[in-house]
């Protein structure tokens, strides 16, 4: 293993290389572009054998990846924001076909209006598609989770695609120290690809053609059960990763906690700003406030067991969402609230469209929460928002 200072995107490209991916369907979209640029560079230098297929849209990027996966090739793609929305239809086809695929989403706000900065709404909006959904909180995790994603996706008890989210710019473009596993370690961890069926001219099959209602529903239930069952399988492959590759980050659980055990209050969030939250928690702890954090690493499967074990019995739980479900709370909040019904759960939606929420904001939010805020959903703006100078159409005479 070697250490290198690389960005989240380079970490993902490295994971793709180590996983010996056979085909990558590519279409560039900020902030994911440098993943495929890095892969193209590796390809040009003969470091990888991966077939790189350049297509004309994200819909085609997923379609090409899907086609290769159906043919039995380990396949990968990456996207973000409008790109993910554009491939939405194909995202469902891949899950419905029960074919192993891995995708990385460099998360970003969704238009309108145009905004290229980070938030999680693109990612969370695929929640019901049948994909396993992991979310990294630093470039190291982006690398580790991407490699584990192939292992999980290709497990015969699962056979579902996996997407790994990573905060756009904050992780995708920020360089940190990343421990890069050796190829032998990954070869040991990640066996050759297995999948339920392949397209084969000698033994033709029809994929995803018309199914009558009961058959269709049975297939849906099968996805549901495979997703639920993947919970233990993710832990199992996580432990194996810790043993065979690196013990640095504990992957034996679906979620990660910080100073939670003896905490009276808990905050729940997902992604890169967990680092700011941890620093804020340290500050509050020094002031005598017993607060801890649960970081959601897997949005799907949603581990009710872990959420209950970690959060039930707390005096209060604050969910900080970087994502929206308009007219309701944040998506994480809805999940948490429906899991722990007897505990008080509050929600803050913030950090949308690249709004910076740092350690001091977290300190402010957490202390306010401990003091007791009344509203269920609060939209938090770290800075004052000036009067929005947005034009309204003039009257037509």
């Amino acid at each position: 293993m070697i250490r290198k200072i690389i960005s989240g995107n380079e970490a993902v490209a490295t994971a793709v290389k180590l996983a010996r991916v056979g085909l990558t369907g590519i279409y560039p979209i900020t902030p994911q572009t440098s993943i495929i640029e890095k892969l193209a560079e590796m390809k040009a230098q003969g470091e990888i054998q991966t077939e790189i297929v350049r297509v004309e849209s994200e819909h085609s990027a997923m379609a090409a990846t899907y086609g290769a996966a159906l043919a039995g090739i380990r396949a990968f793609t990456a996207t973000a924001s409008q790109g993910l929305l554009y491939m939405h239809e194909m995202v469902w086809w891949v899950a419905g076909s029960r074919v192993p695929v891995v995708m990385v989403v460099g998360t970003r706000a969704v238009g309108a209006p145009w905004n290229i900065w980070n938030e999680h709404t693109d990612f969370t909006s695929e929640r019901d598609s049948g994909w396993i959904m992991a979310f990294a909180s630093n470039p190291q995790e982006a690398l580790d989770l991407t490699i584990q994603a192939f292992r999980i996706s290709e497990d015969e008890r699962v056979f579902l695609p996996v997407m790994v989210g990573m905060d756009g710019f904050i992780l995708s473009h920020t360089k940190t120290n990343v421990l890069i596993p050796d190829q032998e370690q990954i070869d040991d961890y990640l066996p050759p690809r297995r999948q339920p069926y392949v397209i084969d001219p000698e033994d033709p099959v029809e994929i995803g053609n018309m199914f009558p209602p009961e058959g269709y529903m049975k297939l849906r239930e099968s996805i549901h059960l495979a997703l639920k069952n993947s919970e233990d399988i993710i832990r199992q492959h996580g432990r194996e990763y810790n043993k065979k590759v690196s013990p640095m980050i504990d992957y034996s659980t679906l979620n990660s906690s910080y100073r939670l055990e003896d905490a009276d209050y808990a905050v729940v969030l997902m992604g890169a700003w967990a680092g700011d939250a941890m620093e804020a928690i340290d500050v509050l702890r020094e002031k005598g406030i017993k607060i801890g954090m649960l970081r959601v690493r897997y949005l799907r499967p949603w581990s009710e067991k872990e959420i209950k074990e970690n959060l039930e019995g707390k005096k209060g739980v604050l969910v900080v969402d970087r994502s929206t479900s308009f007219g309701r709370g944040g998506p994480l909040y809805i999940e948490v609230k429906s899991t722990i019904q007897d505990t008080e759960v509050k929600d803050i939606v913030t950090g949308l469209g690249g709004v910076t929420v740092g350690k001091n904001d977290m300190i402010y939010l957490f202390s306010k929460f401990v003091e007791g805020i009344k509203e269920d959903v609060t939209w938090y703006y770290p800075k004052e928002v000036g009067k929005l100078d947005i034009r309204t159409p003039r009257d037509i005479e």
Partner: protein
Amino acid sequence: MMSLLLDYQYFPITKPGKGAGGKTGSWRVIKPVIDLSKCIGCKACFMFCPESTIVPKGGKVTVDYEYCKGCGVCSNVCPVKAISMVSET
């Protein structure tokens, strides 16, 4: 294909075969009729039929009327005009 022992795992694949979904029903108004004495067995109709309802058989072709939509493509491409479109009404 690997054998899967897990009882909850189902996959949306089927073996190719006639399905109930694409049957023509009662709405077709003209149908292709092949004059086998003229047919030279070139299989152009088989290649062009958008419904795959031309069935090659013993060097010549027949039509699967259960699925034929009566579009007339076969009749148009036949180089020896062996297929005539006949009214069904």
